[in-house]
């Protein structure tokens, strides 16, 4: 079974590290994975997104034309990817930054006030991890523990950051 997830938002919101964490966690669980960041000339501090593919067999293309999951951290991302997400897919929105709702009836939408939650925890920067936590709970793609295990690698052992993000992941996970 091959599942593709797109994370999208403004540069600086940490969408790439969300994808990287998920990819790494899935790798730890012995799945086939690919991670593809968007790159381009027009991306000048603008929007950023990445695609994570997780599967039980070799992955043909790392590109997602119709992702099963989309995690949108800002409005433009929601607008852009609601046209791509596959029917029956699930879209996760940072409801603090996205007021509108996607106008597709055939997809499930999960709203998470990630900024609010993160601010409560005293660090709005970890809103992305809150979302990621919520995402894995709902999507069931990987276990929370492998996510947390991945943090140490992805954050290159920066203890302070690790514990911060660990908590954010957990809170997000329990939010669902």
């Amino acid at each position: 079974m091959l599942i593709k997830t797109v994370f999208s938002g403004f540069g600086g919101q940490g969408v790439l590290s969300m994808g990287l964490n998920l990819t790494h966690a899935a790798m730890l669980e012995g799945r086939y994975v690919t991670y593809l960041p968007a790159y381009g000339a027009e991306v000048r501090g603008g929007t950023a997104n990445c695609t994570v593919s997780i599967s039980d067999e070799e992955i043909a293309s790392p590109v997602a034309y119709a992702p099963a999951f989309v995690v949108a951290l800002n409005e433009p991302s929601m607008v852009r990817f609601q046209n791509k997400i596959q029917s029956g897919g699930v879209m996760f929105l940072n409801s603090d930054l996205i007021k509108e709702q996607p106008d597709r009836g055939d997809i499930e939408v999960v709203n998470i006030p990630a900024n609010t939650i993160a601010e409560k925890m005293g660090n709005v920067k970890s809103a992305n991890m809150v979302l990621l936590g919520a995402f894995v709970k709902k999507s069931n793609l990987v276990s929370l523990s492998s996510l947390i295990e991945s943090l140490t690698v992805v954050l290159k052992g920066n203890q302070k950051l690790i514990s911060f993000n660990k908590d954010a992941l957990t809170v997000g996970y329990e939010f669902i």
Partner: protein
Amino acid sequence: MKGRIVIDQMLCKGCELCIAFCPKQLITLSDELNAAGYLPSSFNDRGDCNGCASCAVVCPEVAIEVYRE
């Protein structure tokens, strides 16, 4: 001399340069993201804008128009 500026909120990228270079501190960031995802700056007309256009000259986005009597 009396002046006034108009900031195009859609063009603004919130770089804060106009804020830094306005001799009268008449510009501040608004707290609403614009469509492009930036916090645009806005003009607080306290009546003492002299239309020096420093804000416009430094604006990378040509987002500021300046009026003067």
